């Protein structure tokens, strides 16, 4: 029976990496909550996961190889600006701190969830190897 790690771990591996990336993006928003002119950013996790698992293209067409691909080199993540709930706080900053904190906490939980799924897969593999 042909097996490889990709087929065993499924999309959990990509999900874990994307959750880590999203944690980084959100932490950046939180760090810049008081920076004048900073625009909050995020990415669509479900779309990024589809792109990462090869179900969907990035959606950006390049007419020249020199153009930026619009995605991160290591992960197919396309950052987008968050539309602020309220217009203008006066200094051009669009970070809504509470919503970002909630999103960060939620993302951290989801990361641990992906971690647990991966752990389960690896445990299963291990017990299959040991023949217990």
């Amino acid at each position, binding site marked *: 029976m042909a097996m490889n790690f990709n087929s065993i771990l499924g999309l959990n591996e990509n999900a874990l990496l994307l959750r880590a990336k999203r944690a980084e993006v959100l*932490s*950046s928003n*939180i*760090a810049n909550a*008081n*920076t004048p002119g900073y625009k909050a*950013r995020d990415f669509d996790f479900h779309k990024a996961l589809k792109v990462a698992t090869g179900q969907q293209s990035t959606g950006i067409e390049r007419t020249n190889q020199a153009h930026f691909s619009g995605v991160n080199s290591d*992960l197919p993540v396309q*950052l987008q600006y968050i539309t602020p709930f309220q217009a203008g706080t006066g200094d051009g900053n669009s970070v809504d701190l509470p919503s970002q904190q909630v999103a960060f906490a939620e993302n951290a939980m989801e990361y*641990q969830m992906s971690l647990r799924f991966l752990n389960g897969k690896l445990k299963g593999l291990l017990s299959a190897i040991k023949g217990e």
Partner: protein
Amino acid sequence: MSLYNIFGIAGSALSANSVMLNTTASNIANAQSVSSSSGDTYKGKYPVFETLYQNKINKTMHSPGVQVKGVVDGNAEPLRKHSPEHPMADDDGFIYTANINIIEEMANMIAASRSYQTNLQVATTAKQLLQRTLTLGQ
């Protein structure tokens, strides 16, 4: 690994906010400072935050931290007070005190303190996630 970058991002915010806490402490401490001329009077110090991009050309592609671009002096005119018996009074009997708005300073302090706490929490969470990841498969 993206989680490692969080330490850099949250750490940059921690140092920026501690600068803001420092300037606020300095402003509050000097709120009653007296001098003999308006030029020598203590001026409020206010840090200006700036987004810290590691890669200046391709700004949209990664997550930036924050840094203090500089500390600017407040532009409030010193308060002039007639007090001839004061040892630091000038020839006309005037002393000059710093024009610090304590309420504004308290608001800045709370903002910096909250932001510091939030970023510390972010770094702690990232640390926990990394530790869990290290025990993967055990």
